[in-house]
């Protein structure tokens, strides 16, 4: 047990020594891995931040019922009764056309809109807050209310939110796709650098085998190298994204300030960052394992 520990320590020391022996090559390899990782990471964070914005502004799902011009108070009471009985309705309130015009005038700074227009162009309306949040069920409910007597138009106010959500879903799919592709690239980079290392140390490997080294012993320093390379590459990716977001946030703060908002992009959370490190370390390990095994089991070194 102690000897195995000592062997691991020796392999790890050898790895660090070898990385430091070729600083430029090490730096370039880490940059390649870091940049490859920073692309999906950056995209992920962008989508994540957009999702946050969407979640904040989406609010509760609302359906507006605009009544026909000729709908009288009887129709209005009829609709009220239907809304009271409807199980999908959380609450609703009636907005009379005159009240709506007043609010509009006040909000838009049009003091005497009615006088200019001559006639109030707004319809009576019900604003309904639904119990449901599922977009498909909301759409079902909107269609149902559209058929009610006296209703001119039933409008779902979350249309834009649904479109945004669809785009966000697309973005998330993109993140996974890009992540998978670049993860593969990372393993390939790991495989290739380790393969070159293995070829450079061919003599050493052959002599070690003749002296009774097991495959595990020979693989060990390369597995350390691959894993360390992956980890440091992941860390580089994290740093690149953190740096880029810090820069972008300077501008975002400026723009948000102009809109009277207090908004900053959120960087990679600690647990997500650690997950990235674990994954990149694993991919580096996998690449190294494949490279070392290919050499050990290959025909060229069948000793």
């Amino acid at each position, binding site marked *: 047990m102690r*000897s195995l520990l000592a*062997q691991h320590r020796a392999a790890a020391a050898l790895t660090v020594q070898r990385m430091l022996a070729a600083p430029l090559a090490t730096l370039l390899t880490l940059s390649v891995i870091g940049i490859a990782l920073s692309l999906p990471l950056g995209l992920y964070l962008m989508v994540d931040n957009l999702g946050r914005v969407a979640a904040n502004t989406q609010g509760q799902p609302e359906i507006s019922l605009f009544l026909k011009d000729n709908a009288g108070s009887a129709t209005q009471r009829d609709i009220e009764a239907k809304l009271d009985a409807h199980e999908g309705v959380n609450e609703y309130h009636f907005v009379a056309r005159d009240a709506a015009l007043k609010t509009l005038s006040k909000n838009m700074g049009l003091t005497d809109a009615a006088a200019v227009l001559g006639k109030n162009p707004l319809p009576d309306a019900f604003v309904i807050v639904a119990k449901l949040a599922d977009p498909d069920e909301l759409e079902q409910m909107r269609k149902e209310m559209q058929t009610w007597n006296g209703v001119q138009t039933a409008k779902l106010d979350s249309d834009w939110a649904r479109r945004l959500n669809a785009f966000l879903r697309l973005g998330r799919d993109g993140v996974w796709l890009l992540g998978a592709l670049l993860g593969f690239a990372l393993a390939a980079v790991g495989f290739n650098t380790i393969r070159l290392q293995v070829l450079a140390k061919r003599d*050493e490997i052959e*002599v*070690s085998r003749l*002296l*009774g080294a*097991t495959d595990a012993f020979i693989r060990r320093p390369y597995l350390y190298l691959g894993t360390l390379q992956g980890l440091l590459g992941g860390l580089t990716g994290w740093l690149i994204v953190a740096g880029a977001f810090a820069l972008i946030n300077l501008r975002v703060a400026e723009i948000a300030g102009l809109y009277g908002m207090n908004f900053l992009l959120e960087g990679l959370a600690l647990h997500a960052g650690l997950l990235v490190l674990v994954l990149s370390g694993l991919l580096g390990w996998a690449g190294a394992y494949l490279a070392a095994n290919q050499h050990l089991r290959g025909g060229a070194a069948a000793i």
Partner: protein
Amino acid sequence: MITFSQVTKRYRGGTEALKELSFTIETGELVVLTGPSGAGKTTLLKLIAAIERPTQGSVLVHGQNVGKLTRGAVPYLRRNIGMVFQEGRLLFDRNVFENVMLPLSIIGMPHREAAKRVRAALDKVGLLSREKAMPITLSGGEQQRLAIARAIVNRPAILIADEPTGNLDADYAAQLMDMFSAFNQVGVTLVIATHHPHMAQHIKSRVLNLKAGVLQA
């Protein structure tokens, strides 16, 4: 004990290196394998260390059929066999001490104990004062002695050497053979291949003469 029974080794392409070879080497014996180049000496040594496997017949080392060993068992066989190669096969990016240290690192011996053993092995071959030197700065004879130190540091029961005196002048070669003879006296089984017949005469040994893959009477 090493036993060859009816061993034939045919390489890909049909060359027969060894033909139905049978002999036994007792534990503690010193055997010199002679014969011209291409007689099959190297192949015979490779079969003992499971570097090659016989096409037919069996090779037993300490009762183990080495031709049938699994891939995972081969390293453990080799830890009991010290090997000296014609070209030395030293690692030129490590110093003398580290070269001899390698077999002990492989078996995971604690550093302190291993360092003692390395120095003892270097002392035996007369290289103790050069432990910090890089192999490239050593003479041909010194490099070969370094290779021997590496082969014996793990105190193997069997030592095989392929043309260990190949590139050395006669004096150096004689020195080396005396060294092998000394190892044999402490109980190590030795198999030395050489195409210099006088090397066999220099030390007291049993001679196996190989010609075109067949043992000569």
